[in-house]
């Protein structure tokens, strides 16, 4: 065990020596493990699983960084955070300055530090991880990012409790108006950057609450909603206006927004939306849900609190989740917390190809999710009332590599087997929302329904920009934010 306890002598000793260590010695500092809620305990609550580094842990972990000159980690981060610089600040215990370094390129560090797939991004480039020949031993960049962001937020919150809100909000300096559609990470970044340039910004969101997938998709136990709300509140203080219950294209068209309501530029960040189904028999039986529906019921509608919430959750004890991404993990782990006795995760390829973050897979296993890899659903079985009673699966093996470089799963003949279950959650990805095509024909889309944009995120319509999942297809929070950044810069330029 590498875990260092707060009170241990080793820590104290180490900390006094930290500044004078050589690279070789640094590589020997034990990896700081993330303190976690106990797996058994957390099965029955929705509180955050990863508890965050203590200050001492953060300092020790920061000292594992070799401050590489060419810093490959920076290139591996989609928004090129100056990673060695912010880590250096942590070793100097200047946490607020560390946050400032991060915020030059990433305005939502508390969120990215928690949900970025670090092992395939920043940490994949880390020299320490490479030298120790173990990606899990790379410097914990994401964890450090989270630590300083949390530190900063707590400090700000304490300060703000004493400040009158009205004093903080700025008035616009220009007469230009910008509409930001959707309130996910791409939109949050655009709203902040455009507002800071002095333009009037209104965020329009279809749901009754703000935050996009950060709110209704990613569960509380992975990303506390308090953090999302804090970021939204910061936008409010900047003077960003919000209008919820507004469906772009339906409540108002693009044309009306620009011509009638006088918006000079529009950013479209409406996410990926439409859930994919497998098109297998039985998919519309009672008890079959898309992950979007299941997670929305549980998160946004507070279904995890069945005593109070008005939105019901389906009564199921044995649940099969189809898919192997983050969404599938979130659905499986939510099912555990809602009291399912057996939760199966059915995935076509093997553990190695699973697209979910390694950490989430690990946590799911700890929480008792049963992984059925190399198999896939053939049909869903129901009773006379069309309620789910089982799922018939086929076993798979890995064949040739496909053009994504992954080995293609091939069904094994006559390998059918059946699991007794009473609910199925389908988490095999999302396509672009059909509303945009129906309501906004002037936007050019690709064959998959994603909005086509130029290098600067501008769409086929002048002064209309787009970014995030509606452009890239389902991707990641940090990529959505990166596009938001680019779009905001282009909007600010266009409105000069």
């Amino acid at each position, binding site marked *: 065990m590498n875990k260092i306890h707060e009170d241990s002598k080793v820590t104290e000793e180490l900390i006094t020596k930290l500044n004078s260590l050589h690279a070789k010695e640094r590589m020997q500092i034990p990896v700081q493990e993330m303190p976690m809620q106990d797996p058994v305990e957390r099965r029955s609550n929705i509180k955050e699983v990863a508890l965050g580094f203590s200050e001492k842990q953060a300092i020790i972990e920061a000292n594992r960084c070799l401050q590489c000159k060419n810093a490959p980690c920076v290139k591996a981060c989609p928004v090129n955070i100056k990673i060695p610089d912010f880590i250096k600040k942590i070793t100097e215990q200047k946490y607020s300055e560390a946050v400032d370094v991060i915020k030059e390129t990433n305005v939502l560090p508390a969120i990215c530090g928690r949900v970025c797939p670090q092992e395939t991004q920043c940490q994949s480039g880390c020299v320490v991880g490479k030298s120790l020949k173990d990606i899990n031993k790379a410097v914990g960049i994401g964890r450090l990012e989270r630590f300083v962001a949390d530190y900063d937020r707590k400090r700000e919150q304490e300060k703000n409790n004493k400040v009158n809100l009205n004093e903080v909000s700025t008035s616009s300096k220009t007469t230009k108006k910008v509409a930001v559609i959707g309130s996910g990470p791409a939109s949050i970044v655009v709203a902040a950057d455009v507002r800071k340039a002095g333009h009037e910004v209104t965020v329009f969101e279809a749901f009754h609450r703000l935050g996009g997938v950060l709110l209704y998709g990613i569960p509380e136990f992975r990303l506390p909603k308090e953090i999302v709300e804090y970021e939204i509140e910061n936008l409010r203080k900047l003077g960003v206006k919000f209008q*919820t219950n507004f469906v772009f294209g*339906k409540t108002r068209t693009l044309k009306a927004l620009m011509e009638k309501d006088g918006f000079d530029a529009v950013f479209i960040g409406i996410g990926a939306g439409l859930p994919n189904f497998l098109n297998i028999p039985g998919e*519309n039986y009672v*008890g079959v849900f898309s992950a979007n529906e299941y997670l929305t019921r549980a998160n946004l*509608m507070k279904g995890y609190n069945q005593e109070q919430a008005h*939105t019901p959750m389906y009564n199921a004890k044995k649940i099969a989740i189809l898919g192997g991404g983050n969404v599938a993990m979130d659905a499986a782990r939510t099912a555990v917390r809602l009291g399912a006795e057996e939760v199966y995760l059915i995935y076509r390829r093997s553990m190695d190809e699973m697209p979910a973050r390694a950490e989430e897979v690990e946590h799911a296993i700890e929480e008792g999710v049963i992984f059925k890899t190399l198999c896939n659903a053939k049909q869903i079985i129901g009773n006379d009332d069309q309620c789910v009673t089982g799922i018939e699966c086929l076993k798979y093996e890995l064949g040739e590599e496909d053009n994504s470089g992954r080995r293609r799963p091939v069904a094994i003949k006559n390998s059918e087997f059946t699991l007794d279950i009473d609910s199925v959650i389908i988490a095999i990805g999302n396509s672009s929302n059909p509303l945009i095509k129906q309501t906004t024909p002037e936007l050019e889309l690709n064959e998959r329904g994603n909005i086509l944009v130029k290098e600067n995120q501008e769409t086929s319509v002048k002064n209309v920009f787009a970014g995030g999942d509606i452009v890239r297809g389902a991707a990641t929070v940090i990529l959505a934010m990166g596009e938001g950044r680019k779009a905001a810069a282009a909007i600010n330029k266009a409105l000069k």
Partner: protein
Amino acid sequence: MNKMNKIVKKIKISDKIFKMTVEAPLIAEERKAGQFIILSLDNDIAERIPLTIAGADIQSETIDIIFQIAGKTTKVLAQLEEGDYIANIVGPLGQPTEIKNYGHAVCVCGGIGGAPMLPIAQALKEAGNKVTVILGARSKELIVLENELRQYADEFILCTDDGSAGRKALVTEPLLELCKSADNAPDMVMTIGPPLMMKYSAETTRPFKIKTYASLNTIMIDGTGMCGGCRVTVGGENKFVCVDGPEFDAHLVDFDNMTKRLNSFKDRERQVDHHCNLDQEIAYLRSIQKDTSN
């Protein structure tokens, strides 16, 4: 845009059915016949429920909703009074009805189905159709919106299951007679009501190959195509009622599956209802509706 979601008028239509006129300027401006809204009564634990836009007035910037008490949300909604606010209303959602001059349009409605039918019958009438309305109810006390629907009907046929008013018949009987008639056959049928009624209306017109639409009332959450909870099988394909509908070719809809899916949460909903202290809940929700006024 502060003038939002205030209840300006409330009428009790029957024991369980209410009509409300609500301020919603943007929706009033954009909505078309056949579209609906989704509302919820707080930002925290309330459910989102779909209701048809039964009418709208652009001048006074209001929409009308007509609803029947079915469960928790509609029960609490019915307790709200003029001057109260509904926390969230989003819309207009769904595809508008395809309104044109079909010739003879027959509107078959049962129960609360008269409410969503109202704007459609009106629009069909304004488009120059001969409109026949067949309105069914179990018994006299349960007939709703008769006068409102009569306004737009060239011909009006009232039926009750027990014969306490109008004809003693199911709606499918006069529908069948119309289909068979030589000079008064429908060119188009629109049916809205309980799934079983819609199913049998579709079966009645099928042999005559009369274009028949049903407006489906599935369970919904977002209403924008994101959750898939509203999906139905139409002609063997998966369709989302909120973005592809709510109206579909009734001859292609799998009504059996839809009915079963509607009951997905029946046990849960009764349980929840049983547990709750409704008076407290209503007081709480009402206080919230007031808070959201600005």
